[in-house]
């Protein structure tokens, strides 16, 4: 967001006193030699340091980066964080609403540990729907680092410790902090496992688009001429047709017998085939403007080969911009996957992604009676927001010499 510009500038040339607000940790720098030190530190700072300082100014971006790190850690350690297996049915607990965590135990005394109330199951005599009521006479404490179903942490270490759960004393009662779905599966565990696919599809697809974008955009901008013309027309064509119907049609054409992994990869490829154009355009623009720079000419005169000039001399000079645009293009991919899976054309059960989870909430009846099934959508919104803010901060920081 532009707001960061207001709070302070780091100028490449340390001239004015405004510099001090850029880096000083203590605002009351008065002594002249301390000021001098500050100036010196800016004068000798590497571009990377300048970028970091500028990025740090953008508080929302730093916060978003923190949120994303947490989300990715949760996805990585999904087996540890989730109390239950995301695909295990439990006929006794269908459509349980999110349980409130309370510190008052069954006797009404304040406890040092959080817990949840029991449930009384009722059947509505008219609609025959099962409804739940809090059973105040029972209180199950939530235990941390409990031993439950065994799993392999990161696929390597065998363990059975989970972040939280009710432990063996609760017998078959369960904790559903985000409620349960129509088959009694724990929504929290499902959202946590869904993060794996939803968060990684963005990264994988962006990586594929980047490869396409750098190769085609690079060729286009470096050589120019006919090949540039052809690639530009292709880009224009892809951009002028609506993406979503095309995505839908292509993923509907994926063979039905494909395994989950193949399908995941297929969808990723489809998303990046249509998504690389933005990056391709930017890379081309950078190449066009860099082509005439002196350092490129110098490398050429030194007899460097084309590939070396591109990879060794030109690409490093715009990596920061590329990273920023990459970050900004991840949200679109996450949203596209969510949309496709929601329509039933993307990933399918038993694969768990946020889009697949939202498929459960497709009609108004479900949403009205069990609104907690929309919660995976909240995860999508938070992730997309965080990526947008982070990308904005990175974009500002990518140009440390501008204000």
């Amino acid at each position: 967001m532009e707001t960061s510009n207001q709070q302070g500038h780091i100028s490449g040339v340390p001239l004015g006193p405004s510099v001090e607000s850029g880096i000083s940790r203590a605002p009351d720098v008065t002594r002249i030699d301390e000021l001098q030190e500050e100036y010196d530190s800016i004068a000798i700072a590497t571009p990377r340091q300048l970028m970091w300082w500028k990025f740090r100014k953008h508080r929302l971006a730093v916060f978003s980066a923190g949120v994303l790190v947490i989300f990715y850690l949760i996805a990585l350690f999904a087996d540890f964080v989730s109390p239950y297996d995301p695909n295990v049915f439990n006929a006794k607990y269908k459509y349980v609403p999110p349980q409130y965590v309370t510190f008052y135990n069954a006797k009404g005394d304040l406890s040092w540990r959080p817990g949840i109330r029991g449930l009384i199951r009722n059947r509505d005599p008219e609609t025959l729907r099962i409804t739940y009521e809090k059973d105040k006479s029972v209180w199950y404490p939530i235990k941390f680092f409990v031993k439950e179903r065994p799993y392999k942490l990161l696929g390597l270490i065998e363990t059975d410790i989970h972040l939280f759960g009710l432990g063996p004393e609760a017998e078959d009662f369960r904790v559903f902090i985000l409620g349960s779905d129509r088959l009694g599966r724990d929504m929290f565990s499902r959202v946590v496992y869904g993060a794996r696919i939803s968060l990684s599809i963005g990264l994988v697809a962006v990586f594929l688009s980047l490869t396409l974008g750098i190769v085609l955009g690079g060729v286009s901008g470096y050589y120019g001429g006919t090949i540039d013309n052809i690639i530009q027309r292709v880009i224009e064509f892809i951009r002028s047709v609506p993406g979503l119907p095309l995505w839908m049609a292509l993923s509907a054409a994926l063979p039905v017998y494909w395994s989950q992994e193949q399908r995941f990869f297929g969808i990723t490829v489809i998303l990046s085939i249509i998504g690389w154009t933005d990056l391709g355009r930017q890379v081309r623009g950078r190449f066009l403007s860099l082509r005439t720079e002196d350092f490129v000419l110098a490398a050429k005169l030194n007899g460097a080969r084309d590939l070396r000039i591109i990879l060794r001399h030109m690409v490093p000079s715009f990596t920061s911009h590329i990273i920023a645009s990459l970050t900004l293009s991840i949200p679109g991919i996450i949203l596209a996957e969510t949309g496709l899976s929601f329509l039933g054309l993307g990933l399918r059960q038993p694969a768990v992604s946020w889009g697949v989870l939202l498929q459960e909430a497709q009609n108004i009846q479900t949403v009205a009676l069990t609104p907690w099934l929309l919660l995976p959508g909240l995860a999508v919104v938070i992730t997309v927001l965080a990526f947008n803010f982070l990308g904005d901060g990175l974009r500002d920081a990518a140009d440390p010499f501008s204000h």
Partner: protein
Amino acid sequence: MVKFIIRRLVTAAVTIWAISVVSFVIIQLPPGDFLTSYEANLRQMGENVPEEQLEAMRERYGLGEPIVTQYYKWVKAILLHGDFGRSMESGVPVSVLLWDRLPLTVLVGLSSILFVWVVAIPIGVYSATHQYSLMDHVFTFLGFLGLAIPNFLLALVLMWVAWSEFGQSVGGLYSPEYKAAPWSMAKFLDLLSHLWIPMVIVGTSWTAGLIRTMRANMLDELNQPYVETGRAKGLREWRVVWKYPVRVALNPFISTVGYALPQIVGGVVITAVVLNLPTLGPLLVRALLAQDMFMAGAIVMILSVLTVIGTLISDILLAILDPRIRLE
């Protein structure tokens, strides 16, 4: 100007040709030829298919002939007779289903664009003239939120709110009593009262980006000397802002709208599915899920062609507004 329009028309024609190729590829993508599955489908429903009829269809679509001939026959039928083939699911000609739903699709798309414009321009101008004010931050935040919420999720939430707060069902484009009624003023008003929901839903995700474009353009213009001159001459502030910089800032804005069009069309598709609108979106999803590829290919093609025409119109409008573009 004539030269510019001709050039744009040629580009559009080439694009439409490319679209027809892509749509044809989509039709061909599923394994096996569609007639076999069509026949199996009919047999399953207990219908007997006479061999002559199958032979006629084989001839009509050029099955068994080279792929180029098949493409040629397909395009020829569309161009000469408006014949897009038959929907394998329902057996009805695709064109009948298409024309039935096309007008409302265009209506929802156009009204969404209108909504985006009406909202984005004033807010963009306000944000630029009141940079860093509280409302500027609020609008920026709302914009980001609109960008981050998937269309279908917003649709679901709005439906839920309307249902639980007002006890109103908001799906579809008509109230039940008008669904089969002939066109009348009352039906039109009923349509309008339903139209605003998809309009807002599709619009929100796009206003965000356009507000930012408008704001950035305005900020560039507001620092120009001519604005200062206007102020120095004693013009009222709203006149200084709205008469000169807004008009200049609008140019890049209009070209952004042309580029936003493909995204808006996509947004309409997915929103229409949730809201169950009688537009092409739900038809496309159903066709794809049933692997009814003639239907799906035709819809993808129609939606893309519409988008190209929309972009063409916005380009020409832009050229009328800004002579610099014509001369490029």
